[in-house]
């Protein structure tokens, strides 16, 4: 076991490129144990890619990642899978598996080669489904579920995996407002108990409300990081997202509230637009800048 003082996730100088596209450019990321860290930034900022690098789905080409003080490169695939779990952004092929069958797969990294999941594993899977309110469709195949329901099933599987670090890639992207709140509240509760969570989140209001710390990424680099109030200022939102915004305390919840006013005009973004003069005004909207390169999501 490692020293408890080691951060859960500690990434140094992590770089990753596909062909000429530098998707991660010397990124540093630190998540202390029991923290909920939010990754924010426009499309193509490198949020998904960073999560994949930390979970070793892709191999970064430079830098190092330490999980609880252990070098990620020195861990076996199974050790990684029992330390952290990733909830994917888009649930890929589901092949006729039922929701319960999928959730129970979260137990695979804990089983030996000749083992089949036992009653304890089934119980853990069922509890995970209750927590995520997916138990009602446990016998349905994933094809018959909506995008949001499917996303919750994949979260249930990650919970059943019993990781110490939970990585979430846009966990609320397909969810209705009720389940956005419920799922993020659940993640927050898990974090309060024992977990560390790192989540890529598009909705700045949700990020401000639920995360302990935010890391703002843009074009594969860390722009700034810190408490939500330090990161989410009208100036940083305008310079990274190209959107004029107002930030004020939410009268109802007491957390930050970000009001998006309008796309900042082209002239004021000029320093950022060097070499990208072909951009039409339409591509400057929030989230409309650039799609995640195929290599990062595939």
């Amino acid at each position: 076991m490692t020293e408890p003082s080691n951060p859960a996730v500690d990434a140094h100088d992590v770089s990753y490129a596909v062909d000429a596209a530098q998707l991660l450019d010397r990124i540093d990321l630190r998540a202390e144990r029991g923290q909920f860290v939010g990754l924010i930034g426009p499309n193509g900022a490198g949020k998904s890619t960073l999560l994949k690098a930390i979970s070793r789905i892709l191999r970064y080409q430079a830098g190092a990642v330490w999980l609880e003080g252990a070098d990620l490169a020195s861990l076996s695939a199974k050790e990684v899978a029992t330390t952290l779990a990733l909830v994917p952004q888009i649930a890929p092929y589901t092949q006729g598996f039922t929701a319960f069958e999928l959730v129970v797969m979260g137990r695979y990294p804990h089983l030996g080669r000749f083992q089949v999941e036992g009653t304890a594993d089934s119980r853990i899977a069922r509890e995970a489904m209750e927590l995520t309110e997916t138990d009602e469709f446990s016998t349905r195949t994933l094809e018959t579920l909506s995008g949001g329901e499917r996303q919750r099933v994949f979260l249930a599987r990650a919970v059943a995996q019993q990781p110490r670090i939970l990585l979430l890639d846009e966990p609320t992207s397909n969810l209705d407002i009720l389940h956005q709140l419920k799922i993020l509240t659940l993640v927050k509760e898990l974090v309060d108990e024992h977990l560390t969570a790192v989540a890529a989140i598009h909705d700045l209001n949700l990020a401000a409300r639920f995360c302990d710390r935010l890391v703002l990424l843009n074009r594969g680099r860390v722009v700034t990081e810190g408490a939500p109030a330090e990161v989410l200022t009208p100036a940083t939102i305008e310079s990274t997202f190209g959107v004029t915004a107002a930030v004020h305390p939410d009268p109802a919840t007491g957390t930050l509230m970000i009001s998006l006013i309008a796309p900042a005009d082209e002239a004021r973004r000029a320093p950022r637009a060097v070499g990208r003069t072909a951009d039409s005004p339409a591509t400057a909207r929030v989230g409309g800048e650039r799609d995640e390169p195929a290599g990062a999501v595939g």
Partner: protein
Amino acid sequence: MGVVARLAIGASILAVLVLGVGLVSLSMGPVNIPTSHVAWIVVSSLGVDTPDFGRTEQLVIEQIRLPRIIVGASVGMALGVAGATMQGLFRNPMADPGIIGVSAGGALGAVIAIATGMAGAFLLALPLFAFVGATAAAFLVYGIAAVGGHFSMATLLLAGVAVNAFLGAVVSAIVLFLPDNEALREILFWLAGGLDARSWEHVRIATPLIVAGTAVLLLMARDLNLLMLGDDEARSMGVRVGVTRAVLLSAACLGTGAAVAVSGTIAFVGLVTPHVLRLIMGPDNRVLIPLSALGGAAFVILADTVARTIIQPAEFRVGVLTAFVGAPFFILLLIRNKRQVYSL
């Protein structure tokens, strides 16, 4: 129902089916032998003291029908598990063992053995050539897909199609320029796939390879479950994707290569068997692969029994029969289950 329960029920039913079909098959043929005699003779060949039914019956069963049925069962098993594995790896219900080139490669090997006269020279030349052809073709297809250290299943599929077409053309070219009509007949006969005159020699060369390949696939079924969900998914659940995929493909190729070597190309078993079982038992490969082994065995023994008794004293080719029966059945299934078969 849990994995173990589903497996136990499915496997019991199919094991009884395999044994039943096997016993019936042993009793049928030019010499009809009562199944009670058959059972005793099989038991006696294991070294147990039993009543004597005369030399003829014993010889027919021990030297002719039993090895043929064991070869048939092995071939069915190899095709069934390889089909299930390919459908999982390609995340596609239309995949079959031939997709990685084993059938076409085996055919080329066999054709070379026959055309050069090697097959006539000694008994095992043909299966040996076919096996080498089958595995070489599969490695070629895999090599193309893995070129540059960047493996892609889509490239594997396309490389399989291209290599299959190319090897098919080579076979056609050899057949066209073959001066000897007898050899031509032999080739056509082999290509149709059959189990005639299979001996204990064939059992000895094919069955151990098939059992080994099947055992590996059974052990890796759980990893295949995760691979079916996508490479990233599998990786994040602790599967070493590259190694696992290579081992799965090699094991499937070993088994099918051995099967093709002793039976030629038997169509549809590898496609239909796992497909039908998946509709009944669900997609979990830990259930599907063992049941495909038993189901494939039952399918081939049954088809072979029909093939060799339906137009006595002549024999029908089992490879033709499986396609005759398998294809319409499969189409019926597709129509009936249109909504359940996964969307592509």
